[in-house]
């Protein structure tokens, strides 16, 4: 709609309207790396908070028929360091610590004695690729019941034979599809995929699914800078799908 107004008045109105836009210039702080580093880290923390709030603890991730599963040879080996930390299977036990009634050492046979779940689910890497694989293990919730874990605690921490470490929220740990996984494609987990025991959670990104498990700890507090190998370098802690 065209109006006619005096030049001085137009300039005055334009200036006034321009000033109202000034708050947008605040985004300029992102141009300073020292500030932007902290702001984008805060952005990820906010995203993680929203992800936790959005997470539906009973909503299943998609499962697939056997024909949709990629051949075992096309399931990538991915590790941050070595693919074989040379775990001694004969001596291996899982150490359980923290807010549990029965802390101590647990054998693979004890874990395999718990009800087993086989699932064909999508493994999504933070890099963007994904593969549908076949996994077998026992739901983490079964094991937590066995050791008398306080499932009202906030976190499940794990340490691995290759110095990798991870932590996940209790809601995700208790998700019915979150496994202590000891089988892939109907075979015992091989060393490259995390033998003898790994986490397998179709509601989490790949880097959350720690391999070569050594210790599980139930806790309410995560040490800052010790929340997960990649998370401590900047990846999202929640890492949920």
């Amino acid at each position, binding site marked *: 709609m*065209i109006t006619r107004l005096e030049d001085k008045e137009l300039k005055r109105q334009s200036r006034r309207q321009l000033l109202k836009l000034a708050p947008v210039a605040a985004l300029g702080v992102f141009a300073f790396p020292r500030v932007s580093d902290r702001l984008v880290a805060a952005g990820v923390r906010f*995203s993680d908070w929203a992800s936790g709030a959005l997470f539906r603890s009973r909503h299943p991730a998609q499962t697939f028929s056997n024909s949709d599963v990629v051949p075992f040879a096309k399931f990538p080996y991915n590790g941050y360091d070595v693919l074989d930390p040379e775990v001694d299977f004969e001596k291996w036990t899982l150490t359980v610590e923290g807010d549990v009634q029965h802390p101590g050492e647990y054998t693979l046979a004890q874990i395999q004695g718990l009800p087993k779940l086989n699932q064909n689910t999508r493994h999504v890497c933070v890099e963007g690729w994904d593969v549908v694989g076949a996994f077998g293990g026992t739901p983490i919730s079964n094991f937590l019941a066995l050791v008398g874990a306080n499932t009202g605690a906030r976190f499940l921490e794990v340490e691995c034979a290759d110095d990798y470490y991870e932590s996940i929220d209790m809601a995700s740990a208790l998700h019915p599809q979150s496994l202590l996984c000891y089988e892939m494609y109907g075979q015992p987990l091989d060393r490259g995929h995390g033998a003898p025991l790994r986490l397998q959670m179709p509601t989490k990104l790949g880097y959350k699914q720690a391999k070569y498990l050594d210790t599980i700890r139930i806790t309410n507090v995560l040490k800052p800078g010790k929340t997960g190998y990649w998370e401590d370098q900047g990846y999202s802690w929640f890492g949920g*799908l």
Partner: protein
Amino acid sequence: MSNEEEKKQPDPPPDRAADAEAGAVEGTVAKLETVAAEAVAAEAAPIQPAAKIEELALVRAAYEHPLPIRITHWVNAISLFVLVTSGLRIFRAFPSFGPKIPEKVLLDIPKSLTLGGWLGGALQWHFTFMWLFAVSGVVYVVYQIVSGHYRTMLFTPRDIPGVWPMARHYFFFGPKPPATGQYNPLQKLAYTSAILFGALALLTGIVLYKPAQFSWLAFLFGGFHLTRVWHFAAMCGFLAFIPGHLIMVVLHGWANFYSMLSGWKREPEYQE
């Protein structure tokens, strides 16, 4: 009467009424007429409106972009810059739409065009600005609908016949079609497409961020794999829109650019 006249100004400064009361003669025609009418009614010493109007050089102007549009435009522009550059860095981590084994590199994007330094850094930028982009985009669309302002820019079937003459003018030196409204049909097509690219980017982004929680949305886009393709396609749409948009802004000069900052456009090229 004075109030009614003032309503025609889209965004009257709050002190206008006070000015009018003080009898200030400066201002718009409307104001002058008001003053003149009051003077005549009071049979006071005559002010000659005609003479006054000649003395004041009046400028044709239009308040084209309300404040919410301008704010969301610039927040979206900044967000898009961040999302595209950080998105390209994320894509570099797995530059393919196929399987991981064997991995076929589709595009080797130069690192210099990307933001974030590494995958984790780029994800931090992406996960921060996705919120700004989403909120700003939703505010923009809701404002367009509620205010009715969308009528100036929404591409409708009636605009179809005008697209080719405008494209011929821009790209093949054809005659310039007369300007009928704030935006020509080609502009409407471009702006409406940009909104659709934004909606596509946002919805596919939700799927890529939370494919398990929004499995129904993933299904709508044809699964996780195809959603990644659509998300990339939305970016390509923006990469097609933005250079054309910027070239047009440069060609149309300062007054046109300044209108997206101040809302006001001096001497608009259209009538009405």
